[in-house]
């Protein structure tokens, strides 16, 4: 990720803000354009004094409006394509390509709040990969303050902010946010993400007994909703069990975790898991 500071992030927020046209204004513009075409033609036809200019001007205005609309729509379409491609690249862990596509996608105003949310969340992910958790948190805070995205996306932002705070070792803030989120109603998919973050906080702060208190429920929640990322949850539970001396259970969970995700990736994402490497056998990946 290229060197970027909070000011440049703020500039990106400003650059991607779309000018809001009120809906009535848009309709009025279209009706005006239509009237500009129809009325002179009608009046000209009635009076018999239609000149070439009288006909040409309104048609030119309408054509210019249509071309401008078409160009704006094309720019939005391209921006959306770039943002989608950036997300796809990020999912496949092609980070350099993801960054390149994202830069193209954020090159101008983004009209859809959902696309704008997606692009800034990806920017935050790229910053986190560079270990710049404070800047990632800055992006999340701005998304929340400006309420960019729908309700579900805003909850995702809150969860991402909590994780960024944890990784940046702003533990008081992170725990406060987690306590707030615990009381909020949220879909089970997000509840599973919340549980994973809470588990990480407990492992990170050494609250191992708390971490394994509802181990079975957590495991089933991770398995149902986190798909491959459930491996991180199993790894974190294994870490707590290891610290509590429950080695047989830790070994089984570590094997499950490494079956889903390679050990080096587990440790890269969650550094406290480094203590388990070498202690317990990991699954060999034959592919």
């Amino acid at each position: 990720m290229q060197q970027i500071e909070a000011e440049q992030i703020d500039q990106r927020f400003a650059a991607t803000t779309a000018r809001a046209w009120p809906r009535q204004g848009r309709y009025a513009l279209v009706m005006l354009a239509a009237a500009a075409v129809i009325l002179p033609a009608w009046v000209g036809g009635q009076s018999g004094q239609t000149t070439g200019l009288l006909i040409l001007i309104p048609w030119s205005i309408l054509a210019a409006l249509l071309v401008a609309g078409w160009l704006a729509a094309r720019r939005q379409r391209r921006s959306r394509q770039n943002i989608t491609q950036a997300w796809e690249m990020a999912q496949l862990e092609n980070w350099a390509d993801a960054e390149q596509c994202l830069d193209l996608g954020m090159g101008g105003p983004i009209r859809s709040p959902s696309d704008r949310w997606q692009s800034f969340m990806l920017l935050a992910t790229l910053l986190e990969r560079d270990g710049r958790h404070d800047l990632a948190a800055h992006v999340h805070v701005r998304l929340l303050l400006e309420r960019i995205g729908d309700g579900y996306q805003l909850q995702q932002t809150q969860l991402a902010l909590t994780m960024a705070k944890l990784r940046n070792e702003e533990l008081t803030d992170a725990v406060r946010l987690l306590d707030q989120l615990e009381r909020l109603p949220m879909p089970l998919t997000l509840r599973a993400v919340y549980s994973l973050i809470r588990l990480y906080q407990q492992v990170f702060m050494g609250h191992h007994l708390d971490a394994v208190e509802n181990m079975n429920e957590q495991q089933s929640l991770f398995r149902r909703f986190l798909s491959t990322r459930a491996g991180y949850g199993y790894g974190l539970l294994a870490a707590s069990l290891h610290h509590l001396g429950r080695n047989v259970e830790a070994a089984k969970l570590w094997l499950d975790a490494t079956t889903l995700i390679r050990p080096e990736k587990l440790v890269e994402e969650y550094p406290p898991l480094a203590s388990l490497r070498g202690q317990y056998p990991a699954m060999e990946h034959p592919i």
Partner: protein
Amino acid sequence: MSGTEAHRLIQSLRRQFLLATVTRVTLLSVVGLGFVLGTLWQAHFQRGSELMWSAASLAAIAWLTLTFYSVRQIRVAHQASAFIASGRLDLAEERLKNALRKFSLYRNGKLLACHHLAVVAHGRKSYRAAAELCDGMISLPGGPLVATRRTCRILLADCRLFLGDVLAASRAIAPLRLDGADLGLAEQLLLLPIELRCQIAAEQYEEAARALPWKLKRAELLDAPRAALVHALLAQAARKTGKGPVADFLQRRAELYHDLDDLAEEYPALRDLAPRARSADNK
């Protein structure tokens, strides 16, 4: 929604497209002719010129009115997709059927509504109806946009597989290449389990076990049940092609994603695998 009803909808869609084309051509001709003749005749044939201007103006107003009316239909289709996302398939179906019965000047709104209706029918396990709609959309002259056509093919193949027609399913996705540059990641993720189901059902194990790392990377991005399905199918293909350790690894991963017994009830291709999965779990 039944297959017959879906068939009737597609036939009505064909008639509506024809009517829309005729209307568009007529209105455009009246506007064009009115504009040209109104200008040419104004010096010598005043009454004719006035008539031409009036006709052109009326045609333009009619075009605008019909455009606004058609835009409302596109909005209905988008509203229906929100209903689909929130699980209210009954409401979505009702709205989409109404939208499909109304006249529209443009094809795209109708095709979008028809595509959403196929998704709803598939979601409600009315596979015959969904297949009729997808088949009808693909075969419509001009057809839907390229991306929608691809999704229709994938949906059609899925329906055909559930109806037990492996050959028709393979035919539906034959023009799509899983590793082709034209498919986006989202489409690859839709196609991967379906293509594998076709290959396993047709006993094309070598083909299914090809490019394993590429397929595995995408399988890891799927939701848990579909990730389990893809892993289980790949395990089956690996076992049949003599890659024992790889098959064991894939099957263990499949078990971690989801209960294979549950999946085997929905996907007959996994019935061979399920007993082995249970014994692996007991080890």
